[in-house]
């Protein structure tokens, strides 16, 4: 008797992904396979994942299953509950967009000697790994899937391996991923030791003492934080994301970081049981520092993909602020507000996946058709690539948390949660939470500054290099992928009530509490606590903005009709009467961020270099001026170098016992033997 279960959808999705991977083995011989088999299968997997997500979020109870994989006595446990369903949906959405974007993008590689087969296989393994991580229901399956994800993505980062910098970035990534995996394993180990089994079901009843729970929490925070990119464990992110192919960057930044967030939520909200308030404070502090640090570093970048990678760090910080607030409220026995924090974090997870993938895909389009990653060489692309420009603008508005787009809703919810700090007993928490909210406000506003810089320098003004001047619009598939993501950004921004209702189910499953008041006033009003406390009507705000656009359209088209042949007269720019404009006169990305660099100077270690070539006839007149600037990540100086020095020192000290004399080694064995014998008696 065949019985349908949502788990089937998960298997179908994974199988479809793997089939795509298998098909791409032939991609080197027949490149058409890429377009007609590999990416469609990946897209199918995305669609099926979304279906599984909807099935899991429709209110059905969690489905569990056992797979006869792995070792004979250690079966894989699979569980599809609403949390894993939600993350499966996020993976599915982005995978779908990437499958539309991919064929156009990888065409570039068919002329190079990089293997398309390797790219396809590793992409498939990477996606399959992520899909398996979120449905794994025991530590063993989780770790296997996690490693599959990490290793496959290592190969993807190292894909363009002929450049030494890429190999170095990939190695750094692999190293951090492995250290993180060990910490996660230890965290699970603590739980398993007390729960008696490696399944998550047993871990839920581990009944840890506060000390052990804190140990497991700390290990999990560091382990998952390494993948998610909390400061100062984020250093691999700005190195690895820029060098991967752009659609892979979208997957890594949009989805893989979210899988780490999933792991953290699963561990803290599901497996560990009642949280302690200090965990919340730690997570809140980590989140605040991460968000501010991320955006400050993003501001001084001029490599577009690197800049986006630092923004991922910032957004992970925002997600962690939400989670920290949730932990604080849950531990203070105020679940109604805790739920709000959790929902804000989950909402931002979804939003960040959407707009960050959109921006990375846009950056990919710029890279392929404008051949530029450096903002300082771009400019005027809105005329060459109008569609990409439009969707990139939507991405910029979303990530800058501006209404009526999706990024605003989740930040608004985070603020609303923070506002409930007045209900807390502890005066210190009441004072600290608003300060972290102020940090959030600052980083949100700085993000807007940063994206004005990105958009203004890349798309507006005049082209700063020849290649950019002759850029072409991206292929249909690439534009379509961006269009889908941009529409979703608007959709999730305008319909927050429906989304919050779905997210509330996750929270009910995890903690037993959901939001009740948020949607009581109907779909038009989002009222997280109560209507008189705070309300936001995204559709009406959208209506307001649309009215403004409508006014423009009315004027635009009526003026067109009146003067059929004459568009608005065009003249040289006034520019206060200075001479004709040249591209060199425009504000560059570095110039735009200069006031910020001046104000927050201690946040970076800036290397500035001014090269001045003087006129040989007139020594006071410079012929050419060049200004080079790059910012070193302070965490290298203050965190990694001391760690490295310590490890080196420790190694040297331990190295002393390596004398090279055979008799000494025999003596070690002899003393060890005696010590062991003494121990066991």
């Amino acid at each position, binding site marked *: 008797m065949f019985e349908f279960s949502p788990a089937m959808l998960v298997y179908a999705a994974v199988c479809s992904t793997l089939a795509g991977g298998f098909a791409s083995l032939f991609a080197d011989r027949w490149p058409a396979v890429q377009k007609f088999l590999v990416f469609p299968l990946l897209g199918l997997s995305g669609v099926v994942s979304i279906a599984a997500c909807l099935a899991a979020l429709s209110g059905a109870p969690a489905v569990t299953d056992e797979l006869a994989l792995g070792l004979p006595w250690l079966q894989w446990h699979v569980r599809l509950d609403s949390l894993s369903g939600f993350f499966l949906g996020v993976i599915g959405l982005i995978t779908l967009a990437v499958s539309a974007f991919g064929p156009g993008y990888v065409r570039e590689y068919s002329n190079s000697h990089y293997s398309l087969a390797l790219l396809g296989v590793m992409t498939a393994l990477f996606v399959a790994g992520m899909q398996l991580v979120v449905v794994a229901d025991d530590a063993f399956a989780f770790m296997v899937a996690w490693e599959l994800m990490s290793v496959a993505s290592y190969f993807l980062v190292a894909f363009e391996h002929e450049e030494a910098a890429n190999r170095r970035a990939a190695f750094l990534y692999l190293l951090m991923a492995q250290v993180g995996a060990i910490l996660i394993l230890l965290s699970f180990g603590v739980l398993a030791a007390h729960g008696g089994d490696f399944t998550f079901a047993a871990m839920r009843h581990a009944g840890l003492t506060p000390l052990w729970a804190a140990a497991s929490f700390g290990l999990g925070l560091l382990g998952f934080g390494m993948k998610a990119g909390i400061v100062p464990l984020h250093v691999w992110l700005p190195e690895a994301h820029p060098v991967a192919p752009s659609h892979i960057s979208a997957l890594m930044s949009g989805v893989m970081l979210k899988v780490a967030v999933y792991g953290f939520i699963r561990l803290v909200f599901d497996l560990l049981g009642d949280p302690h308030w200090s965990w919340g404070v730690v997570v809140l502090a980590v989140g605040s520092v991460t968000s501010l640090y991320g955006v400050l570093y993003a501001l001084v970048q001029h490599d577009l993909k690197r800049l986006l990678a630092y923004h991922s760090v910032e957004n992970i910080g925002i997600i962690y602020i939400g989670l920290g607030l949730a932990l604080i409220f849950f531990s203070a026995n105020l679940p109604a507000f805790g739920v709000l924090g959790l929902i804000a974090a989950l909402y931002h997870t979804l939003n960040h996946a959407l707009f960050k993938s959109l921006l990375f895909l846009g950056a990919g389009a710029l890279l392929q058709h404008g051949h530029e990653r450096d903002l300082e060489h771009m400019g005027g692309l809105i005329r060459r690539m109008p569609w990409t420009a439009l969707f990139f603008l939507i991405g910029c508005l979303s990530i800058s948390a501006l209404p009526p787009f999706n990024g605003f809703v989740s930040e608004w919810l985070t603020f609303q949660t923070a506002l409930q700090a007045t209900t807390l007993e502890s*005066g210190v928490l009441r004072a600290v939470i608003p300060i972290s909210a102020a940090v959030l406000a600052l980083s949100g506003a700085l993000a807007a500054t940063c994206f004005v810089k990105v958009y203004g320098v890349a798309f507006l003004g005049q082209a700063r290099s020849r290649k950019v001047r002759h850029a072409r619009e991206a292929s249909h598939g690439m534009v379509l992928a961006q269009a889908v993501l941009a529409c979703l950004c608007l959709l999730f921004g305008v319909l927050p009530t429906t989304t919050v209702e779905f997210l509330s189910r996750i929270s009910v499953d995890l903690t037993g509490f959901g939001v009740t008041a948020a949607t009581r006033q109907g779909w038009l009003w989002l009222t997280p606590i109560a209507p008189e406390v705070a309300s936001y009507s995204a559709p009406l705000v959208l209506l307001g903005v649309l009215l403004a656009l409508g006014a423009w359209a009315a004027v635009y088209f009526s003026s067109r009709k009146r003067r059929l042949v004459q568009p608005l007269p065009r003249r040289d720019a006034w520019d206060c009467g200075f001479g004709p404009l040249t591209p060199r006169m425009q504000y560059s990305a570095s110039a735009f961020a200069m006031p910020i660099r001046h104000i927050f100077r201690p946040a970076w270690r800036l290397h500035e270099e001014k090269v001045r070539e003087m006129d040989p006839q007139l020594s006071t007149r410079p012929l050419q001026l060049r200004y080079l600037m790059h910012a070193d990540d302070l965490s290298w100086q203050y965190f990694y170098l001391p760690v490295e020095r310590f490890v080196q020192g420790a190694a040297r000290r331990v190295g002393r016992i390596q004398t090279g004399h055979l008799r000494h080694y025999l003596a070690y064995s002899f003393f060890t033997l005696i010590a062991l014998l003494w121990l066991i008696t």
Partner: protein
Amino acid sequence: MTAYADLPLIEQLIRTFAALILVSSFALLAQARVVAAIQVFAWQGFLLSALTALVAWNSGLPHLYISAVLSLVLKALFIPWLLIRQSRRLGILRDFDAVIRPGLTLMAAGTLVIFCYNVVIPVREFTQIVTRDAIAVSLALVMISLLMLITRRKAITQVVAFMSLENGLFFAAVTATQGMPMVVELGIAFDVLIAAVIFGVFFFHIRDSIETLDVDQLSRLREMDE
């Protein structure tokens, strides 16, 4: 517990003055110019004496009026006048004592306020007097003055910080125990006065012997380096 809005006006005024004193201590911390720092210090003394008078009015303790007058005369008028006169004679009135990392210093001050609030929560449980909410502010005043002492280089601003620290202690005495016994208070007031005079004399001696009033240079006096 009554709602804040139902408190009598005088109690609201006391709290407002306490908050203003807190602001003055932040202002003092961020002031880089010597003359401005002394002026802010004078304002702080004035606010403190006003607050003392208010507490005296509210609690009906006559000896607090004397404290109020004393602090008005000494802290708001005489000592600032003395400091300005000395600075002028030393030629450092328009000097600049740069605040190190102003943003970070202000953040540290904010953290100190929260920390002090946390520290005095148990104290608040024990006392019922109207000024108990202000105890945290008085402690914060002491802490911020200490912070100013360790972040400044010039001797003159350090003296201002020291005087402000004494303001904090006086404030604590007024708010926590409705003032100290009159004898003690008078004694302290004259101590401060004498201290101000002696500091003034010392400035001249320090400058004469090492030709600067930058306290970082005082490390040169260590015998080891000679």
